[in-house]
């Protein structure tokens, strides 16, 4: 890395374009920084000259309340957008960890997948328009402010999950949706012997929860249920629907042998957000968190295989299984950073031998850059590399941060 790194905080699109064009010409490498909440994803840049912060690119650009459309600059904190929409009885299922710091641009660029996506759809499907600045300073717009648009390629969605390697997102236009009027968090202990049946029951529910998790460790998100783990389910909708969902959940879990359940109405969303925050939470410098995406019916068997593996390496483990989508979040740690460091690389090898797609979403340990943080490159990686060449031939943006060395 260079001895002198420069931090730039451009205040508008034109300033971003000028900065990038000049860096690109000078062959300087640029890292794009949002709120830093997902800094545990991706590799560090292979070289870094300028950090481009979106901290001054904030604010709502358009709030078309009657159209259920909102547009904001990339550096706008997710919480600000969510609060604005909430006042209008609208929402977008961002489900971003640490929403007070997470930015719109960062959340989109990281392709963050939230737990409510099975219910409300993916964040990318709310993106109806974008403005991006390419490495050479080209400012390009895609889509617009209408909810249906098939004029040309869907460039906006292509930028989602591109990790800032195709261009710097400076504005995103989103469609919004009516906010469910009520929310309830449903909690129950989940003893080992009831787990399989309980999850089968959950996935067969008529009124599906907006999100449902089995949490083991993570202090079972604020309610320590010993070693059993807990089921936490977020119910959203009208009062009448919540009542019915609660009854259905209770009886389904009862049939599975789950002994007791309770519900929280005040603070249900806060409870949900603490679970999402845990996805990227670190235990000092002695943890790494993996995220895997098996189909829902394979999630528990996947988690159990991982547990055996963790046991073999004598690491500590904490797990969240997103019952509705199938995601498995596994945090491995050890008592001290040194002990962790001696094990984690071998564990990472073994994990990827079994689960090639496992990604790392959090972890401050110095070994992290040497792990397979994106998992195995997907089919199509060669085309992805070619895309990178077309968009950023000098490898100016986030060089080496993305999958397959992109």
């Amino acid at each position, binding site marked *: 890395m260079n001895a002198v790194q420069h931090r730039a905080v451009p205040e508008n699109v034109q300033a971003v374009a000028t900065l990038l064009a000049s860096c690109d010409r000078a062959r300087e490498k640029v890292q794009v920084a949002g709120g830093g909440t997902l800094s545990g994803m991706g590799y560090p840049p292979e070289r870094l000259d300028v950090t481009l912060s979106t901290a001054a690119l904030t604010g709502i650009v358009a709030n078309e309340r009657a159209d259920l459309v909102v547009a904001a600059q990339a550096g706008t904190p997710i919480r600000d957008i969510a609060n604005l929409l909430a006042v209008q009885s609208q929402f977008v299922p961002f489900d971003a960890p640490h929403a007070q710091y997470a930015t719109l641009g960062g959340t989109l660029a990281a392709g963050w997948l939230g737990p409510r996506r099975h219910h409300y*759809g*993916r964040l990318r499907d709310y993106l109806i328009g974008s403005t991006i600045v390419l490495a050479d300073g080209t400012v*390009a717009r895609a889509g*617009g402010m209408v909810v249906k648009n*098939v004029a040309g390629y869907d460039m906006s*969605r*292509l930028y989602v999950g591109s990790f800032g390697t195709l261009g710097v997102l400076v504005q995103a236009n989103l469609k919004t949706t009516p906010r469910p009027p009520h929310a309830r968090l449903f909690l129950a202990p989940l003893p080992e012997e009831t787990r399989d049946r309980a999850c089968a029951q959950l996935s067969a529910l008529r009124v599906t929860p907006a999100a449902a998790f089995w949490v083991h460790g993570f202090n079972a998100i604020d309610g320590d249920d010993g070693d059993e783990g807990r089921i936490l389910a977020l119910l959203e909708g009208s009062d*009448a629907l919540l009542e019915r969902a609660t009854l259905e959940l209770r009886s389904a879990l009862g049939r599975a042998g789950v002994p007791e359940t309770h519900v929280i109405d005040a603070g249900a969303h806060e409870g949900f957000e603490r679970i999402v925050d845990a996805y990227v939470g670190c235990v000092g410098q002695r943890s790494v968190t993996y995220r895997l995406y098996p*189909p829902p019916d394979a999630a528990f068997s996947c988690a159990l295989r991982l547990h055996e593996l963790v046991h073999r390496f004598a690491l500590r483990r904490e797990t969240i299984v997103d019952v509705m989508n199938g995601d498995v979040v596994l945090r491995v740690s050890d008592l001290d950073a040194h002990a962790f460091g001696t094990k984690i690389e071998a564990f990472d090898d073994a994990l990827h031998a079994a689960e090639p797609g496992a990604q790392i979403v959090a972890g401050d340990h110095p070994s992290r850059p040497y792990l397979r943080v994106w998992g195995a490159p997907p089919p199509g990686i060669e085309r992805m590399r070619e895309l990178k060449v077309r968009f950023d031939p000098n490898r100016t943006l986030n060089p080496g941060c993305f*999958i397959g060395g992109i």
Partner: protein
Amino acid sequence: MLRDRLVEALGSDAVKTAPEDLAVYAFDAYTDGGLPSAVVLPSSTRDVSAIVKIARDCGEPIVARGAGTGLCGGAVPLAGGIVISFARMNRVLDLDERNRRARVQPGLINLALSREVANLGLFYAPDPSSQLISTIGGNIATNAGGPHCLSYGTTINHVLGLEIVDAAGDVFETSIDVAGYDLTAAFVGSEGTLGIVTSAWVRLMALPESVRVWVAAFDDIDSASEAVSAIIAAGILPTALEMMDVVITRAVEAAFHAGYPTDAAAVLLIENAGFDEDVEASESAIHTIAVAHGARSWRSARTKGERDALWAGRKSAAGATGRIAPNYYTQDVCVPRSRLPQALRAVGEAAHENGITVGNVFHAGDGNLHPLLMYDKRDRKQVAAVIETGNQILQCAIDLGGTISGEHGIGWEKRDAMTRVYSTADLAVMARVRDVFDPMRMLNPEKIFPAGARCPEVAPP
């Protein structure tokens, strides 16, 4: 030479070159194109790969074709080339009930998938009006919409991964559940210009427990469109919110007796589906807004039969206009939903000014207009008037902050209009994507990108 090689690779049964066969593939639901050099009907991904390699060797462009129901000339060859028809690749390959997904071949008819999974309590949500004949491959190419997009989203929201044959004949897969660029998103809606989809994983949804359909009648179009804007502004997103004007309801009733009032200037067809409690409660909220905006009658479909009849009428509306004029042209624009009243007024004025009969039948809740312009294509003056009217409607949508296509695509028809909504830089960025997948412009050439776009397209980045 071309024919010999294709026959050698696929067998004579899969290759058509007789003029009377080729003529069938020279048009879609928009207009005539040119005759292809050959039409091939592959049965497998391997066949498609072989066709692409032969086409490359022979310098023939390729146009992939589903059912040919496209409304913008996207599936027609313009001068020679090979048309790949997916009529024989029309099966469900995998059905994963527990994870609610299916892998299908591109030639599978949209509605056939929903019918196949109905006994599992599932359905495939995107429902273009052509769903009785249009294919999932074609729907993917155009990112097709439909009335129920209002709550379920367009095709892109329902595609989980693709198998693609690229312009070199190589096969690769995409998935939205792996790290890396979202190639699935790039391909859906790319109108066959980036690669050829040979199979797709699509999302299935649970059939709703309760479905209600209502018809609200209005004495003028303005009131009906204001009611739509008000329903959306109130934060109510029904499953579908469609509008038809009197020109359309009269044609539909004459043809199908679907159950629409024929003495109202405009009707709204409103569907809400979901859980009993919510659907029940939504009726009074929507009804109140409709009445406040001048709805003079409100009818609830009592039976599944009544609901189905109303929907069948709606989805057959374009065909019903055959009673009004020998030909019709469907414009497809989308505007911000609060601008619907202005957009509809402008449509009426443009049609009046040019002496054209217009019928409106469209996805009002999405702001997605479909004015049907009636004409007789044997009369040159009428043809010119229709073109002018369509053009004025396009410009009006742009002026209102809208787009030149909400769901039908750009194809050949609207490619030159792309410069009216995108800058040269915007288009050049799209062309960078195309450079990766089809650098030689062999796949559906002359579509999407404006004529003469080649220069900025290949300008060095």
